[in-house]
């Protein structure tokens, strides 16, 4: 009986606190101050939803020229373009000064299929430095795709890029 009373008291207090009191320490939190690379103060623009993806086989000349101009290195991709199986090993030439690389694998329509980021210069599809088991539940290469790599220095600046390269299982 006493326990019931205590429970009842607790219920009343909790309800009163929640409905009648201004809960401290949360609602008044100010957003953290950050220093983004570009101003982020403008209100989000109202844009329409993303249109369907279109083929991206042609590289963007503006970006390539810009990357060349800032001294970004061209990365040589080493993985054969054909006969690589369902879990290919993506491999590329290291870039001097690179701390990290990103890899993007796109389907024939230019839609992203798999991505990876790390310090190594080779990775198997699905991740890791060892070939995944053939029957593993991760992503597999069943049809022609294309891939490319970017290199970043320790400060996160792009210092290398590759062209897109086809890959066929």
């Amino acid at each position: 009986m006493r326990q019931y009373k205590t429970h009842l008291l607790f219920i009343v207090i909790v309800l009163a606190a929640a409905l009648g009191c201004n809960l401290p320490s949360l609602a008044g939190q100010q957003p953290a101050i950050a220093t983004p690379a570009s101003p982020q103060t403008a209100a989000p623009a109202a844009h329409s939803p993303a249109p369907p993806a279109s083929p991206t086989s042609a590289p963007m000349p503006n970006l390539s020229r810009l990357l060349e101009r800032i001294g970004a290195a061209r990365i040589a991709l080493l993985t054969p373009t054909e006969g690589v199986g369902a879990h290919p090993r993506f491999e590329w030439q290291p870039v001097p000064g690179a701390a990290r690389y990103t890899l993007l694998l796109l389907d024939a329509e230019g839609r992203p299929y798999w991505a990876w980021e790390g310090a190594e210069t080779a990775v198997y599809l699905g991740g890791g430095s060892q070939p995944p088991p053939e029957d593993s539940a991760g992503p597999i290469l069943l049809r022609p795709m294309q891939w490319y790599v970017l290199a970043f220095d320790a400060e996160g600046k792009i210092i290398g890029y590759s062209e897109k390269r086809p890959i066929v299982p």
Partner: protein
Amino acid sequence: MNTGCHNHSRRTTRRVLATGRTWWQIILFLLLSIGLVPGGIIQPAQAQLPRRALPQGEWMGSFTYEGLVFTLGYIYAFGYSGLANFTVARNSASGDWESRVWTTNFVTDDECTIEMNAEGSVKGVVEGSAEILVLRDTDFNGTFTSRGGPGCDPQTTPNLTVPLPKLDESQRISVPREIHWLWVTCEQAYGRMGGSLPSSAELGFSLEDPRNRANLNAFMRDTLEAAGISMSAEDHFYAIRLSARRHSVEAAAFMDAVNQLYEDVSALLDRLLESEREGTGIPGDLFLELDGLLQRAEALAHDIRRTQDCSFVERDAYLSLLADSVGRLLAYALAHPERFYASDLYHLILAGVRTGLFEPRSVYLFGTERLVEQVHNELLRRIEISDNCDALIFLFQSGAALGDMAVVDEADARLVNVCGE
């Protein structure tokens, strides 16, 4: 049953100033600890989610559930971590589960900081259907401890260690936890436990009047969401059909690794929120840590076999363990654009692609379409206002990573204007 539980090296703790009386605080916390152990409240919104049915067979589920409870100026953290074994028949599920449970809090009153913990285990049964599992508790054991810090008066804040009292069925308020699946394949399933984010529902555990409970929960939810801490509670239920597990992999060890992975993801999200509350930038090693978590998720995926009936489409059978967590991280970044550089967004988008978050052939991932649209809008917004070449390059690459040609074209045009190319 082996719970697969492990010691929590991380405890979500929150320090808040309180002005109440020490004994009253202890009693309140004790009550809360007892009350948290049995069940939660099911949010009405959850019931409206599309339902997915588990294929028949033997399954093992791993779950963690952590959250905060707010009341009277205190913030309590609690967590569950456990395993469930269950069988799915045509339209019913049955089995059992066991979980470690903890609640913890630090209360500072003048110079005195009191640490209060409750810790124990809960057992229960799995019921429900192939569409919605129900975890109902049947028994729990635990201990409550209270310790005063150096500045505390031992007379008013004695150190306590007492067993949590047993409550009989009529006293306990046991509300079943429902699992709502976000995605289900023939090999794996991922869902959320009853009471979506945030876990304000926990506060309503003792309000038997549904209207009071609904009011209270709505109030708490609004308060938390207004404060931008909708990630404050992490809950997940990951299940694997035992036939899909590689025979060389011990089931409990696999599930333990899954649980640990989710706990570490939860810790990462907690750190992000903590940095926001403290007014500091995002953790410097956020992306390195995320990368490590992704590698662990990929390694675990290798322990799951692509079974014959799952191989009809190349990736339908696969969804990363972390896709949902990366989705939450990305949603947080979109809600707090001032905290993230364009390069941060790029890395998050890449993590999304890596986990299959944007995968168009995914069986089902709740909210992905909306997330893609939000990312698209945010990228365009940043392109429009950016006068920084490095940022624009990242925005371009973000569009390319998403296969979003509208973003790529906009970034390309802006690069010409801003950077002279």
